[in-house]
């Protein structure tokens, strides 16, 4: 699965799409869903909740493990993806599209510039894969 050029990426494998002015969309990458395996449960904040850069704002559970999701930027949650409540497995099939997690009104959009672009993220995970197969 390709990593969209308009997204920015974290080392914790979240993506953020801040192309829509200040209303950003956040999700996890294809690399992350693959590492997780079958997703069975998603816990997301309610709209109105504050998220803070680098802090956990929810969790995703696969059959075998729980993983925290970290905020790529700070802001206020405007909407959480309600579809994921009943269909968490969408995260495995379309993590970078239909299975977005939250929409956020960013408090400091400039933060995004510190994140990796698609090319840098691809290089980052290529390095990870190399470590794993060593």
């Amino acid at each position, binding site marked *: 699965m390709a990593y969209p050029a308009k997204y920015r990426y974290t080392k914790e494998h979240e993506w953020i799409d801040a192309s829509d002015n200040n209303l950003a969309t956040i999700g996890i990458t294809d690399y992350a869903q693959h*590492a997780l395996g*079958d997703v069975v*449960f998603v816990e997301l904040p309610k709209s109105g909740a504050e998220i803070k850069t680098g802090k956990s704002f929810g969790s995703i559970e696969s*059959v075998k*493990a729980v993983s*925290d999701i970290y905020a790529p930027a700070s802001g206020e949650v405007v909407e959480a993806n309600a579809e994921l409540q009943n269909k968490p497995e969408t995260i495995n099939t379309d993590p970078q599209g239909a299975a977005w997690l939250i929409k956020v009104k960013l408090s400091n959009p400039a933060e995004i510039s510190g994140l990796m672009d698609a090319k840098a993220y691809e290089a980052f995970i290529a390095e990870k894969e190399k470590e794993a197969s060593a």
Partner: protein
Amino acid sequence: MLPSIFANQNRTETSKYSFMSEARKTPLNALHRRLGAKMVNFGGWDMPVEYPSSGGLLAEHRAVRNGAGLFDVSHMGDIRIKTARTKGGALAAVQHLTMNDASKLAVGQAHYSAMLYPEGTFVDDVIVHRLGEDDFLLVINAGTREKDIGWVRKNTAHLDCVVEDLSDAWTQLAIQGPRAIEVLQKLTTADLSQIKGYWFTHGTVCGFANTLIARTGYTGEDGFEIYIPSDVAASEKTWNSVIDAGSEYGIVPCGLGARNTLRLEAKMALYGHEISDSINVWEAGLDRYCKMDKGDFIGRASLEEAKRKPLTRTLVGLEMVERGIARDEYRCWGEAGAEIGVVTSGSPSPTLGKNIALAYVKPEMSELGTTILVEIRSQKCRAKVVATPFYKRARKAAAQPVAN
């Protein structure tokens, strides 16, 4: 957000063996990687947790419940105990070391048992196979190998037996599932229908003569475990032959993830979780494998004493009523507000479609139907005590009597 897969596996052991920085590999390691398996460190071993090429953990789990699955379990250890001089020496050693009554084993028979500390807590759980009148094989856990072999040597030094560590001599494969017998039968001269559950035989498998074939497993399903030579060529040849033979039954390679959900549904204990060096036999509910009347054995005196006192905790099965998945080490609370126990294993149950768990709770909270609150990321989620095992396979129906 990378998952800490199996972070708590064998937690009581990892600290002791943390000096082993280099993960050990089974002879099938390269094959797992070629298959694209996700690998994890399990008890010091670099093992496949799931195979995306099999469809992942859930698909692997279902293959074992409905057809067949193949597991590399070569990380398990094997200790052989033979008589040194006088008939009965090996039996006496096994009786001293383990809690079940090995004198009841016929040659060709195996049983579940455990080695205990003097305190009546667990060194490890083991499958004891009686290879001959004076010849036993103990199959032990991967994460406890060094500890176990040291324990066996130390505690049998004064006895009339020879102890051999055969852990690296074999590649151990588990073929599990209702169709496992048909899969393996294609590859062996032995008549598998003649092997009852927890019995074994020796036969030629994939051209390897005198292969130990045991009707055992860790999935709650029918199946076999075979012990073949541990060189890479023999191991890969056998693995591929089993996959080919099983293709018509939908066999897939299965990893430790499915092994864990399968054993949990069947309520089979995992060392470091339901049993450990701080949990005793009565608490773990393994009474029926502990034969107090067989004569003395390590741990017996403490268990005798413990039996006179009421239990302070007991192992129960939980089913989540509210949304949420109970996980290892989550705390349990009563409705009245008191902390009453801890989860030892928890997962979604692929077979039941529910979230299940095993937990140690205060005995007064162990009645079926009791409400227990599991603390999941600071939220207390409702669960109830349910009967175990969570899953029990349907036994093949006996021949129906003809109506007249």
